[in-house]
């Protein structure tokens, strides 16, 4: 598909087509419990179909098929090396940045393949934002410039007033505005770890993506800052589709609507999706014994 076409389709935030709905149904993901929270902006559905991921000859992830529901938080859990982060990175074409890495199968956003010929990976990453494990603001830039950086990088020319508005909206959206509004011109390095991570979230949402990927976003934060991010995640799902990789199972239990458990049978084998379902079900009565053993901490 020509690049302009996918950009257009993504930009326009078209509602799900009947074909996409059908895909959702055949993916056999039990519907998550309905959320009572209000959806402020319908976000997009991500579908993975028979996805295999490789680093050179190494088969890292095998045959993942799942639907990531819009305006829901989907948690990917599993032990180290099970492929959950690799899978996450494939959802915005970051996986391919590793030399020798490749992807087989299909990943689509509202039915539009992100790996189709002619699709610009940079454009995909604008639509599918990423928040990393350690907060990584640009240390010498001011708080304001950090948030605006995404806008600048995406080469959208913007008047100052418009930019001010986007920065404020993004900082408010990241629950950070009240804490930094009087020091927007100060370096981001002066913020606490939790604030820095919320700044990175503000930077990610400044470009109004459809999907937010979060790779262990709280692993470098203290418990209170962690809970603040979890509250923020619950808020953000009203506008975005969220996928979070976490090693903290209680975090998955607290913050997600859907949980996907990845596992590998033994070292050297590819990781695979064992079970995906409503978080409530995964943590009370999972279907697979391997899921049961993992979530109840029976095996390390």
């Amino acid at each position, binding site marked *: 598909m020509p690049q302009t076409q996918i950009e257009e389709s993504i930009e326009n935030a078209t509602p799900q087509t009947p074909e996409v709905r059908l895909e959702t149904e055949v993916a056999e993901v039990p519907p998550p419990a309905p959320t009572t929270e209000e959806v402020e902006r319908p976000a997009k559905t991500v579908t993975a179909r028979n996805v295999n991921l490789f680093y050179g000859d190494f088969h890292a992830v095998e045959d993942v098929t799942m639907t990531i529901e819009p305006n829901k938080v989907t948690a990917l859990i599993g032990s180290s090396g099970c492929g959950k982060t690799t899978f996450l990175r494939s959802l915005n074409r970051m996986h391919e940045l590793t030399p020798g890495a490749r992807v087989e199968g299909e990943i689509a956003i509202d039915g539009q393949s992100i790996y189709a010929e002619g699709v610009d990976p940079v454009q995909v990453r604008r639509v599918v934002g990423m928040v990393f494990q350690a907060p990584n603001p640009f240390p010498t830039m001011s708080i304001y410039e950090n948030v605006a950086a995404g806008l600048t990088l995406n080469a959208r020319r913007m008047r100052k007033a418009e930019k001010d508005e986007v920065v404020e909206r993004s900082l408010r959206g990241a629950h950070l505005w009240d804490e930094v509004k009087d020091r927007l011109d100060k370096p981001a390095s002066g913020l606490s770890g939790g604030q820095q991570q919320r700044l990175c979230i503000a930077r990610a949402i400044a470009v109004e993506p459809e999907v937010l990927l979060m790779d262990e976003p709280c692993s470098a934060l203290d418990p209170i800052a962690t809970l603040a991010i979890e509250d923020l995640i619950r808020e953000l799902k009203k506008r975005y589709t969220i996928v979070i990789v976490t090693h903290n199972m209680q975090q998955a239990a607290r913050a997600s609507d859907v949980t996907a458990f990845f596992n590998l049978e033994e070292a050297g084998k590819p990781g695979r999706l064992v079970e995906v379902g409503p978080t409530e079900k995964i943590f009370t*009565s999972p279907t697979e014994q391997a899921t049961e053993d993992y979530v109840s901490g029976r*095996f390390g």
Partner: protein
Amino acid sequence: MGEPTRVEYHAELRDLEEHALEGLDLVVDALDRTLEATRNQDAELAQAVVEGDDALDGRYLEVHQRLLTLIAREAPVAGDLRLISALLHVMKSMERMGDQCVNVAKMIPIAGSDPPADERMLENIAAMGLQVRSQVSQAKRAFADRDVGLARDLVRQDDIVDALNRECFQIAIEIGDEPDRREWAMTMILVARALERIGDNSVDIGEQVAYVVTGLFREFDDASHPGAAGAAG
């Protein structure tokens, strides 16, 4: 998957289950003494049943507290969470069954030491006692073995208790107008009622077995139908 982890937590959970299910053995003991006291109109033994209930209450409080500690400290999930939830229910049922034994024991001095007004009523109550005793043991076995079939069978077993209970009610209706006999019959109705409740509690435990195993909590069909509980139930 590597080495087993959280070894102490799982050992504590196993120990708690054992401790909780032993509580059902205490119920069986209390029931034995209660039935013997009823049969022999033994007020002294009845008093011992009342006093012995402290052991059941103590077991209830201890296991309950330890279960809450596990929830607070270990954040159990999945099968462990279902087990803990079920054990909380089992302990509540155990405590209630102990209380029903006390209720029966307290009736014994009221029933007096005169010869029983109706032998059939006493036979029925003895049969109910044996039946619910067997059900409590069966509930324990079903739980320990995670045997849903055995748990479901408790519904069938409990139908026997319900039928005997209805008979007791009928006997009381037909016992005549003489005030002492009627009072005795009323007392025996209360005894039968307490035993019938113990039967229901054993079915409740059976439902928890099904929940632990399947993850689905449903009352067993017949248990919640008013028609099955009988006129006095």
